[in-house]
């Protein structure tokens, strides 16, 4: 089943894929056609979105990586779609209308990493306090010492 998807994706979008785990297929996507790819995967039965996982590879000079994990609940297979972002242009099209459950996951990724999901209606702080907006604490460049909790006057 995953072989089929691999060939179809290669044929339709030209993206390379490789097996990631026994049940997971890793698709190396690009952000320009990300929405079409996810729409295509949804039509193929990958209807249940798990999460959006962002990895910060800036110390290695590789920018950021955004992973979308989708599951096919009938055939019990997973697909991971990977998009690489350069450090100086952290934008990726939002897929909240294709997969509504991913909207809060995108929101979390935005507040923790600063990856902007263009088209997401609610890029507001969710887990962090209001005054910590824009700190992006899960980035590797985040400095604990610099961001001590401000005292009450500074708030």
């Amino acid at each position, binding site marked *: 089943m995953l072989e089929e998807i691999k060939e179809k994706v290669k044929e339709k979008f030209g993206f390379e894929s490789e097996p*990631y*785990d026994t*049940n*997971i297929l890793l698709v190396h996507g690009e952000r320009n056609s990300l929405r079409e790819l996810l729409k295509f995967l949804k039509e193929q039965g990958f*209807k*249940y*979105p*798990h*999460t959006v*996982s*962002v*990895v*910060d590879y800036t110390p*290695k000079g590789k920018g950021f990586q955004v*992973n979308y*994990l989708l599951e096919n*609940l009938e055939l*019990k297979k*997973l697909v*991971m779609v990977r998009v690489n972002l350069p450090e100086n242009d952290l934008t990726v099209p939002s897929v909240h209308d294709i*997969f*509504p*459950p*991913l*909207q*809060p*996951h995108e929101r979390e990724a935005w507040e*923790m990493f600063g990856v902007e999901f263009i088209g997401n209606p609610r890029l507001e*702080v*969710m*887990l*962090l*306090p209001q005054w910590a907006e824009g700190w992006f*604490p*899960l980035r590797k460049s*985040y400095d604990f010492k610099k961001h001590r909790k401000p005292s009450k006057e500074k708030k």
Partner: protein
Amino acid sequence: MGNSIATAGYTFVVEESKEVSGEDLGLLQEKLLQLNWGVQHPASGPMRLKVWVDGDEVVKVDPDIGYVLRLLEKLVEYRTWINAIVNVERACFIDNFGTMTGYSIAAEKIAGVKVPKKADYIRTILCEGGRIVSHLIGLGSFVGVLGVHTPMQWALIAREKFLDAFEVYSGQRIATASIVPGGVRYEPTGKFIEKMVTAVDFLENEFIPRYGEVFIDNPTLKVRSVGVGKVSKERAIELGLAGPALRASGVSSDIRKDYPYAAYGELDFKVITKEEGDAYARYLVIWEELIESAKIIRQAIEGLPEGDYRTKFPVKVPAGEAYVNVEWARGCFGFHLISNGGTGPYRLKMRAPSFANLWAIPEMMKNVKLADVPVIFASLYMCHGDIDR
């Protein structure tokens, strides 16, 4: 939303920062009132639901979370491979074994370590013990939001027996830190097995008959929960529900069965699904999974093999990554673990089932009665530590 409900000389704060006054009391039936259902509320836990009500009808719900944020994903990056379990288990330590197992499996996949069979069985026993403990609290708190505190008390008595077993095993009752990459941390002694059997005996012989008699076919409970918060099969997938909530809508999704890990592939159990998809079905799924878990523990204890309980886990793990899903008590918990060849994780993304369930609430709570808000909230079976991480 910025409407006011006010009376002569009488003011309500309708929006958080805006205080408006008006003329007559009759407006209450026409305009919206924002209730802060949470943070300091008997049933909410450390989170807030902003509930806009029109009379007794809920118009809109917006969750406000982050009150127990510990940023575990960041803390893990500063730990070694073994130490990181301490942070991972604190995602929600009502059932801490599931998260530790998932993390350990991910770390083992990257390092290429094969776990002895005995460790797999112990993990299964502990995971199911954790699931029972969590489900007991889930049952108790579901009936608890309807104003009856008896089930919670009964559940806590049964839970104590399991905590005793965990204490004998690891020295801790709740945050046990007992499953590590490379196996489990302690030798399962005869006393631990004995305690576990006692606990399962108590559950099966005392708790399940007593509870099942009073609180399963309870007519008033049915009046309150049948048909409340109904989600069809397609809708459940669309909303991205997880765990018991997803299975109650008829989707047979159980990681233990679909992608077997630990010793689940060798044990015989069935996945509980219900077709109705309402609050009562979710409650029944939790209840039947509890019974099923007790059977799994018995099987795993019977089939417990001899041998090592732990292998050596390398200090430095080669670069690589793994994505592992485990069936945690509250649903499918995903771990995206990345190593860069160092002594600790480079990045760990935790996909929490409660987080997925929480963001289905605004859709599920449209046009329900105010009294149904706690019922739907409790039936989704969420843990606040898990939402915020």
